[in-house]
């Protein structure tokens, strides 16, 4: 084979090298990135309470597992999710964060649908939501007794998700 004919094979050789490299990379898929907050202590937020005076502080949620649910009266999907919380309130401590919502509207919304929350923090300008990395409402966090976030879920929590993935995290020690 002359040098000239060899040159014609060069592009193919380069391609094979590239394929080998890409193949190696694809054969080692990374674990999907969990939310960077999972496993970390909950950000230290403090929000005014919907009920009047006082604050809902992250520090006060320590000592037992707590479910934190980010919701709003403008959020249609939150209304769809709401019955799950009404049922779950019998067996767990659930606190709400009313996100970017007028407190009057939040109160009316809860009065109409029932209030499953032990406490509701008012987060009109997203102070806590930004710290928590909220991407949309509804969003749900499970905090362990030591204040770490052990689970995060974006979207509507169905009875299935509640039973299979959230409730098991709350049992045990408490």
């Amino acid at each position, binding site marked *: 084979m002359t040098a000239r004919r060899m040159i014609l094979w060069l*592009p193919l050789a380069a391609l094979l090298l590239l394929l080998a*490299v890409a193949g190696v990379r*694809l054969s080692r898929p990374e674990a999907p990135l969990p939310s960077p907050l999972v496993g970390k202590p909950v950000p230290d937020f403090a929000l005014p309470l919907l009920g009047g005076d006082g604050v809902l502080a992250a520090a006060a949620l320590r000592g037992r597992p707590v479910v934190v649910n980010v919701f709003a009266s403008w959020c249609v999907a939150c209304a769809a999710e709401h019955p799950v919380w009404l049922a779950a309130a019998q067996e767990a401590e659930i606190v709400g964060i009313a996100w970017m919502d007028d407190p009057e509207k939040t109160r009316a919304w809860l009065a109409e649908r029932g209030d499953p929350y032990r406490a509701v923090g008012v987060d009109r300008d997203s102070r806590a939501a930004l710290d928590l990395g909220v991407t949309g409402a509804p969003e749900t966090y499970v905090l362990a007794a030591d204040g770490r976030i052990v689970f995060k879920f974006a979207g509507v929590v169905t009875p299935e998700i509640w039973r299979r993935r959230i409730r098991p995290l709350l049992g045990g020690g408490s």
Partner: protein
Amino acid sequence: MTVEAGHFALLLALAFALVQALALPVARLAARPGLAGVAPAAAAAQAVAMAVAMAALVHAFAGSDFSVRVVAENSHTAKPMLYKVAAAWGHHEGSLLLWATLLAAFGGVFALWRQGLPAATRLYTLAALGVVGVGVLAFVALASNPFDRLSPAPIEGRGLNPLLQDPGLAFHPPLLYVGSVGVSVAFALAVAALLRGNLGPGWARATRFWTLVAWIFLTVGIALGAAWAYAELGWGGWWFWDPVENSALLPWLSAAALLHALGGVERRGGAEAWAVILAILGFSFSLLGMFLVRSGVLTSVHAFAADPLRGVFILALFAAIAGGALVLFALRGGRLSRHVAFAPLSRDGARLLGTVLLIVAAGVVLFGTVYPLLAEALNLGRLSVGAPFFDATVLPLLAPVVALMAVGPLLRPGRDAARRIWPTFVAVAAVGLAAAGLSARWGGWAAAGFGLAAMLAAGCAAVLWAERRTLSRRRLGMVVAHLGLAVGLAGITGGSRLAAEGIAALPEGGALSVAGRDFVLASVIEVPGPNYLARRAEIVEAGGVVLRPEARLYETPRQATSEAAIVSSPWGDTYAVIGESDASGRWVVRMFVKPLLPWLWAGAVLMAAGGALALTARTAPSARRQP
């Protein structure tokens, strides 16, 4: 119903693509040449079916049909209609469907328009396009079906990345796709030439036409993408050597090289094998870009859904199409070239050298883009290759290309005499050196950039003067496109090497001085938008510009973006970004002054206009030189 019709049309298109791909081989095997004639009809039918499929998807997005999975994941009722429609291709499945639709459209037009090509060339080309179509459509139908339904349908969609809510971004991906898919026609023509063993009459002209179409769209698409990054990302940059950008740059560079190689093939013959390999590389780069972007093997500022299984599928597709063509080239490529002598000092010599430099530059960009993969495969750890690498390697390769563009077109084809041309060369070089000398006070990069830009502009002027009576429309197109690069290069140089920036936390009424200009933060007010809340600042320069940058908080998904305020004049941009406010009520204000930057966009427009001029020129007389 429309959604199911779209899905059906997609499967129908796959069937038509199979017919298109198999018509010629079946006709050969069955020794019934007439059968091959169904390929053009199949290509046209595939184009129609894909248009229906794409229309069905756009319809689902426009009507916010959240029972369709990709609509629920990527759209939202609160979005303006333009972005609902644009969301149809703003995600993995939809963008692939658009890719396949454009491929079918190119195939359909090629099938119906004879362009003076012999029937055999057209049938082989259609078969090659059919094979590509089968691969891409199988991928869409099997692994990326955009017509999947959700049950139950969600009440509301999950929105679109607000960063992507910008007119520039709604349109630049489709334009880039037209460009990168358009290279497929040149690729298929190259494969046809290899299969037949010769180029045949009209090959160079047709290949040049389709390559030029693709190159124009790539130029506009890349420029719009850069303009989007500049206006929207909020830190004054417009090019980041990001893998997604590089994967558009690679086909652009190779299409530019191919156009210049074809100029020689069309006029004089010679370097046929070089043109064929450039055509193959061009489309291989397009496919590689799709793999890099869609498989998620490279992390990128362009956040697309990543799925390793899809990655394997696209990699196999890329390997089969590019690998098949390259095997064919290795076996048959040697037979294509006729030996045509031309002197190194000639227009052909300069052009050939330019194509080599361009493709070497593309190779370096490719290396830098996939080097992180290589490093990881060899367990060298995860790393990313950034602007310093590309600036240090690619720019020194492109600088001589610009110099060649300045002097090459002044040379005569075939052979030229140094005696004849040296006074012109000296004059052109002197303009460049003078500009470099004048701009040396801004540093070596500025001197090189302005020097080369001035030299290229002078070279263009010299061509216009020397050929003022004989200039054809096609030559004029070349000069305009080259001039566009000169203008763009001046814009790039001014906007980067002469730029100044300042950042400060200002209370209302506070002042910031950048490049000798004083800017005052006059006020910050809250302004509600359609699906976001904006804090809009008013920044006033005494006796100068007023800028109103915004910081926006989007509701779905929750995301903060900054909307830069840019005031442009022919002499440069003034650019302001506003960030967070701190506890004492001061706002972070960032200002850039970017001299000449708008010239970059003007240069891109000139390049595309030059391409369009050359595209619409009549170029009949050259064909007779073909065998």
